[in-house]
């Protein structure tokens, strides 16, 4: 089935990169192009999310050649992303920022996004650190095809008939994808309207994170929904004004995120950055768009070198908000 697709489409899914992990003899699982189903890693959670295929880590916006700004051509092929429900829901969050926010659409995001089709990897059993059910992102019906991989067979719920040819060799069989029903980790997000922002701002909770977080930004880079970026210019030739402008991923935990020319910056304490991120993921984004930004994939917990747990942070916050409510 996949062999038929591989020639015509770019297939992108979770793949194991042997020996590429942070420590010797360890692998890392990330999203990459593949050509046959054997290359897919379906038994472990990926360390990185698929977002880099719609929102590249480094993306050239244009090249200056003398007096002309030239926008690089894009890969015309349709991209099939093999991903789990939480990540499909995560991409909805990226859509909210890049397409909807501010009234102006992001040209580069949109042109990649229009080429993306979702092939959902059915996800019936959670991994460690997942809390998708609490974030209401464990299920979706937004896919071209849903796939259940078992030892020798693949069951497919095909919705987009563009891909019908690839499935023509298979037998018809009833299949409705199932979703994770319950996670071991449950979070209770404090109701957005209950947050007393100035009081919470000063809460000692954030001090704990000032002492623990080292501002490495892994939580930002592994997150399917973190969408922040910075501009970066590269110079080829000073005199002719030759060069290129790129955008590169940035994140609210990373040093320099708020630094302005002249030296002024905001949120110098890492705990304040944790507060900023937490409120964005489970509070202010919700107030803007009507759904939470965080999808509960738990990757930030998996990758944090200081073992900071975001789900634990949300629950702590909820207790604090609850206690404050009782006192009133």
């Amino acid at each position, binding site marked *: 089935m996949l062999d038929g697709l591989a020639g015509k489409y770019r297939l992108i899914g979770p793949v194991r990169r042997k020996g590429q992990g942070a420590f010797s003899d360890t692998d890392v699982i990330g999203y990459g192009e593949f050509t046959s189903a054997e290359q897919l890693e379906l038994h472990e959670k990926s360390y990185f999310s698929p977002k880099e295929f719609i929102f590249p880590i480094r993306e050239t*916006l244009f090249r200056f050649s003398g007096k002309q700004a030239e926008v690089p051509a894009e890969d015309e092929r349709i991209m099939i992303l093999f991903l789990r429900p939480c990540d499909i829901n995560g991409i909805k969050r990226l859509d909210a920022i890049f397409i909807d*926010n501010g009234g102006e659409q992001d040209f*580069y995001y949109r042109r990649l996004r229009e080429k993306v089709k979702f092939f959902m990897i059915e996800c019936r059993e959670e991994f460690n650190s997942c809390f998708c059910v609490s974030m209401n992102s464990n299920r979706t019906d937004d896919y071209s095809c849903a796939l259940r991989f078992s030892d020798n067979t693949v069951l497919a719920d095909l919705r987009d008939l563009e891909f019908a040819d690839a499935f023509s060799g298979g037998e018809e069989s009833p299949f409705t994808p199932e979703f994770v029903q319950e996670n071991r980790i449950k979070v209770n997000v404090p109701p957005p309207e209950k947050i007393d922002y100035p009081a919470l701002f000063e809460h000692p909770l954030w001090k704990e994170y000032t002492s623990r977080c080292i501002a490495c930004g892994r939580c930002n880079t592994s997150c399917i929904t973190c969408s922040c970026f910075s501009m970066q210019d590269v110079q080829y030739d000073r005199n002719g*004004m030759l060069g290129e*402008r790129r955008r590169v991923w*940035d994140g609210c935990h990373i040093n320099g995120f708020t630094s302005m020319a002249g030296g002024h910056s905001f949120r110098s304490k890492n705990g304040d950055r944790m507060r900023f991120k937490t409120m964005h993921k489970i509070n*202010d*984004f919700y107030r803007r768009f009507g759904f939470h930004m965080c999808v509960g994939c738990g990757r930030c917990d998996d990758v944090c070198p200081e073992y900071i747990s975001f789900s634990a942070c949300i629950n702590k916050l909820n207790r604090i908000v609850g206690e404050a409510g009782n006192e009133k």
Partner: protein
Amino acid sequence: MKNNPYLPFPSKIIAVKQQTAIDWTFRFESGVTPVPGQFMEISIPGIGEAPISISDFGSGWIEMTIRKVGRLTNAVFELKPGAILYMRGPYGNGFDLERCCGKNLLIVAGGTGLAPVKSVISHFCRHRGSIQGFELIIGFKTPSDILFHDEIEEWRKTAGVILTVDHGDDAWHGCTGVVTRYIDDFEFHPGITEAIIVGPPLMMKFSALSLLQRGVPEERIVVSFERKMSCGIGKCGHCKIDNTYICLEGPVFEYSKARQLLD
């Protein structure tokens, strides 16, 4: 590529005027018609891009008063009239001039904060009849930091101007001390005053507190924010405070909103 908001357009420098050693005013050929208080993303290919407020504009030109403090602005200072710079915009909401009409207008500006309100001042100097009282309190660190010398003298003909420096020198015979000192001693009618405050965060905070104490209601005080930005269109995330994007909903805010924007 018409719908690509990141593509800048070239703009020719027509004139450069030195205000202080590190603050120069660049006049660009431009068909942009901004609202006072808006900003542009200006750039030099290969060097970088930064948001800069528009300090004044007229038919066929805009001006930006730029401080030499970083990678991009260092390079901008090497450009001579006739050279090309790239820009996109204008962005942000800008000042609502309508709300000042018929009122007493008080503008409190500190340092480079004078740049984004300069076009407001120019506007009401030209349309003096549309407002009642017109008072400016302008502060700088030292006499050598004073921007728009000539214009300030010109404004004295139409508006009440208090020009103060934090630290004077032997040649300085004007006012000294921070702007809040002059807000406290100032004769004005809080009930019909619209106030605009622009400057460093602490200066804006204490100026607003002084005005509140003098009886100006917080919904009649506006301030303008400054933040790092990479896009100007609500995507890059740098300027967000809580649920507010400074580039989209700002940089100008009523104080009642601004005081809730904790960062």
